[in-house]
C-alpha cells in the first residue's frame, strides 16, 4: 500500500514473531494477524517473508513446530518458542530498547 514504509526488515520480523509466540503457540496466519492487530495496522506482514522466517527460526532452534487441528478442524502448522527462543527474545528486546533510547536521545539533541 502507499503511505509510510511499513515493510518489516528481517531482524525486526524475527523479534516480533518471537514476541507473539511468547504468549501462546500459533499458526502462521494467526501470527500475521496478531502482529497487525497489536501494531494497530502499522505493520503489514509479507506472507512470503513470514513463512521463510519460520523456516529460518526453526533451523536455528528458536522455534519448534507441529501439525495440529485448528478450531475450524483444518490442519495447520503450529509454532511455539523453545527455551533458547525465549532467551533470544530477551536478548533482542534488550538490544532494541537500547537502540531505541539511543536514537531518541539523538533526535532530542538535534531539536
Amino acid at each position, binding site marked *: 500500500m502507499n503511505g509510510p514504509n511499513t515493510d518489516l526488515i528481517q531482524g525486526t520480523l524475527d523479534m516480533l514473531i518471537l514476541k507473539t509466540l511468547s504468549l501462546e503457540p500459533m*499458526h*502462521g*496466519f494467526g501470527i500475521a494477524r496478531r502482529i497487525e492487530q497489536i501494531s494497530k495496522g502499522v505493520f503489514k506482514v509479507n*506472507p512470503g517473508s513470514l*513463512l521463510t522466517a519460520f523456516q*529460518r527460526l526453526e*533451523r536455528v532452534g528458536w522455534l519448534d513446530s507441529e501439525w495440529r487441528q485448528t478450531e475450524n478442524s*483444518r490442519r*495447520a502448522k503450529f509454532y511455539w518458542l523453545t527455551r533458547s527462543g525465549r532467551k533470544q527474545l530477551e536478548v533482542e528486546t534488550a538490544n532494541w530498547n537500547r537502540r531505541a533510547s539511543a536514537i531518541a536521545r539523538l533526535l532530542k539533541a538535534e531539536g
Partner: protein
Amino acid sequence: MSFWRQVTRGIQVLGNRRAADQEIDEEVNHYLEESTAMFAAKGLTPDEARRAARMEIGNEAVVREQIREYGWENTIDTWFADLRYAARRLRGKPGFTAASILTLALGIGATTAIFSVVEGVLVKPLPYSRPERLVALSHIAQGVNIKDLGLAASLYFTYSEENRVFQDIGMWQAGAWTVTGLGDPEEVPGLMVTNRFLAVLGVQPALGRPFLPSDDDPRGERTVMLSDGYWKSHFGGERTVLGRHLMLNGAEATIIGVLPPSFQFLDRKISLILPQRLNRAEVKLIGFCCQGVARLKPGATLAQANADVARMLLLAPAKFPLNPGLSAKTFRDLLIVPNLRPLKDVLVGDIGNTLWVLLGGVGLLMAIACANVANLLLVRAEGRRQELAIRAAIGAGWGRIARELLLESSLLGVAGGAFGLALASVAVQALVASDFVQLPRIHDISIDPAVLAFTLAVSLAAGFIFGLIPAFKYARPHLSGALRSDGRTAGQSKERHHARSVLVVVQVALALVLLVGSGLMMRTFQALNRVHPGFSRAPEIETMRIFVPAEQVPGPERTTRMEEEILRKVEALAGVSAVAITTGTPLESCCDNNPVRVEDQASREGAAPPVRRFKYVSPGYVSALGSRLIAGREPTWNEIYKRIPVAMVSENMARELWTEPRKALGKRIRPMSIGDWHEVIGVVADLRDDGVDQKAPSIVYWPLLRENPGGAGTATRSAVYLIRTPRAGSIGLRQEIQHAVASVNPNLPVADVKTLEAVYKRSLARTSFTLVLLAIAGSMALLLGVVGLYGVISYSVAGRTREVGIRLALGARRQNVTRMFLCQGLALSGIGAICGLAAALGLTRLMRSLLFEVSPADPLTYAGASAALVLAATIGSYIPARRATRVDPMEALRAQ
C-alpha cells in the same frame, strides 16, 4: 545445537524432497484458506474473498519458491541438477565425448602409471618404524679408491661400545646355505646378522622369539630364523616348527622364530636369517666383510653421526689387534672415512633420474592431450554461441554460464581419469609381474591411496584448466554478433582462430620434445649395443653357480679336484664345447677389489698400491667365455695343483703398467706385501665387468687354488661355471648339468642357472625400458599433435568454404587452393617445431645421466625428429587441404 539442526533438517529435505515441498504447499494453502475466511467474514462474497486473499499473498508460486529456497540443501540440489544437465549434454554428443575421454584417458593413464612407480620407489618411506632414522653404515677407503668398503667386525664392536648417536647398530652379510634333510638339497639365500639387527629395523618375529646376545656366542647352539615364505613352503606353516632342526651346510641349527610376512630388506631374497656368531677375541682390525645398518637417536642428524663415526675410527686400532702381515701404517694408508647414508638412498640407488625423466615425459604427453581436448571444447563452444548469447540476453550471469562450462569439462576430466586409472592399473600390474627392468622396491609399486588421490587431483585440475579456455571466450559472448542468424559464417574471426592455433603450436612443440627425447634414447641404446662386452656369442654360454661348503668338503685341494671333476663331467655332455670356472658372473660380479703390488714398480712411500678386480679362474676360461688371449697363455691344471705362482692380467692393466701387452709377460705381481711373486703368463682382452656402460676395470686372474701365506692354499668355494654350448638355455641341458653335478657330489645344489645372454639383456634393461616408454609417449604425442593439426585445418577449410568458392569461381587453380591450406598447416607446425627445438635443447640437458656416448644436443637426433614431425604435419594438413578442392563453387556461393 542449531548447527546440528541445520544438518539434520537439510538431510531430511534432501532425502524426501517431495514430502518437504508438500508440507510447504499445505502451509501456504492453509494461509490462503484462513485469509479467504477472514475476507468472507468481513462481508465479501466467497469469490471476491478468495481473490482478495490471493492478491494479498501475491504470486503464490513465488512465495512457495521463496520458502523452498531457504536451506543449504538447495545449493547441493542446484549443483546436482547442473551436473545431471552437463552429463546429458555430453551424452548428446557421443563423438565429441568419446574422443575427449579417450584422449584424456591416454594422458592421465600414462601419467598415473609413471607416478605410481615414482611414488612406490622414490617417495614411499621404507616399511619400518620411523624409517627416516635408519642409515646404512659403510665406509670409503680414500687411500685405495674403494667406494663401498662396508663394515668390519672390529668397527662394529667399536661403534657398539663407544657411540653417542646411535640407538642400535646391526651388521649384516648376505649368504646362502645348502639345506639338506628336507628333500632335495637346496641352496637357500638369506642374511647373517648381529643380534640387534632386527631391533634396528623395528621388526618383531611373528612367531617365536627375537635374537638374543646369547645367539651371537660362537660357543652356543646354532639358531636360525625363517622367513614367512620359507616357513609356509617348506614347513606347511605349522606352528610346531619352533624348536625343530635344520641342516645348514652340514651343521644342525635350531629354528627359533619366523619373520612376519611383510618383512623385506633391500629387495634381497631372504629365506633364512642366522646370527653372525663372531668371536670377539679373534676379531682382527681389518676384515671388511659386511654392511652395517643403524638407527639414529631421536634428534641426531646424519652429519653428527658421520662425525661421531670418524671419531670412533681412531679408537678402533687401540681395541683390536692388526692382522698378521699388515702394519698400523697400512691401516692409516687406507684413509678410511665414514660414509653414512639414509637407508632408502642405498636401496633406491641411481634410478631416480630415470624415473623423473619418464615422469616429465608423460607430463608433456598429458599437456598435449589437454591441449587437444581444449581444442575440441573450443569448437563445441563455438557451435553453442547462439544458445549462450540468448541465455546471457535473458539474464544469466557470467558466473552461471561459466560454471556450467566448467562442470562439463570437469565431468570429462573425471571420466577420462577413471578410464585412465583402469589403463594405468593394468600397465602397473604388467610392469610388476614382468620384473623386466629390475626396479628397486618393485613390490612397493601399486595403485595405493596416494596414487588415487593424485589421479583425482590431476583429472579435476585438467578438466578445470582446459575448461577455462572456452569459459573465458564464450561465457560472455558479444551479443550482437552472436545473435545474428548468420553467426556461423562469421565464426572465423581472427580471435577465435588464434586460440586454436596457439594450442596446436604448443602441441607440436611438446611432441617434438618427446620425439627428440626418444631419439636420444634410441641412439644411446644403439651405442650400448655396439660396445664389445668382452665375451662373444653370449646366447651360447650357460652359467651356473656351485657352492662347496668347508664343512662338507674340507681341504682346499680336495675342493678344487671336486670342482675339476664336475667340469670334466659337464664338458663330456653332448654339445658342450668348452667349460671353465671363474668367480663372479661377468657383468654381474662386483666387488672383489684389492690392491696389487708390482715387483719392479715399488709403490711410493706412503701410498697404497692401486686396486684391481680379482678373479680366480680355471684353464679354458678364455675359450669358454669367447674372449681373446692378447699375449701369452693360460695356466694349466698342473700348475694350479702344484700351486706354481702364475697369473694373468687384463689388457688395460698390461697397457697401464708396462705400455704393451707383450711386455707384461714375465713381470711379477703379488696381492699382499708378503708371499710369493706371481709371474704374469698371459694377457686377456678387456671385460666390461661393471656393466656395458662403464669402463672395463683392470682385472687380475689368479689360479683357482689361491695363495695363503704359510698355509695350504685356499680353494675357490663359490664357483661360477661358464659352459659354452649351442644348447644353452634348454631344459634338457640344465637337467643334464644337474645330473652331472649330482654324480660327483649329490649334496651340492646347483644355483643361479642362466645364460650370459640373459645377464647381458638384464644389464641393458633399464635403458631399453626408458627407450620403450619414451618412444611410446613420443609416438602418441606425435599422433595427438597431428590430429590436432588436422582438426584445425579441417575447421579452417569448412569455415572458409565461401571464400574458396569465390576463388575457384574467379579462376584460381585447385592446386593453389590446396597449397594455401597446406601452407597454413606447415606454417603452424613450423612455428611449433622451432619452439619445440628450443625447448628440447633446454630440457634434454636433464636427461644427460641416462645417455651414453650421445650428447643431449646431438644434431642427428634433432634433424631426424624434425623430419618425422614435418612429414607427419604435411600428411595431417594435406588431407583436409585436399577436401577444399572438392568444393563446388556454385554450391559454395549459393549456401548461406
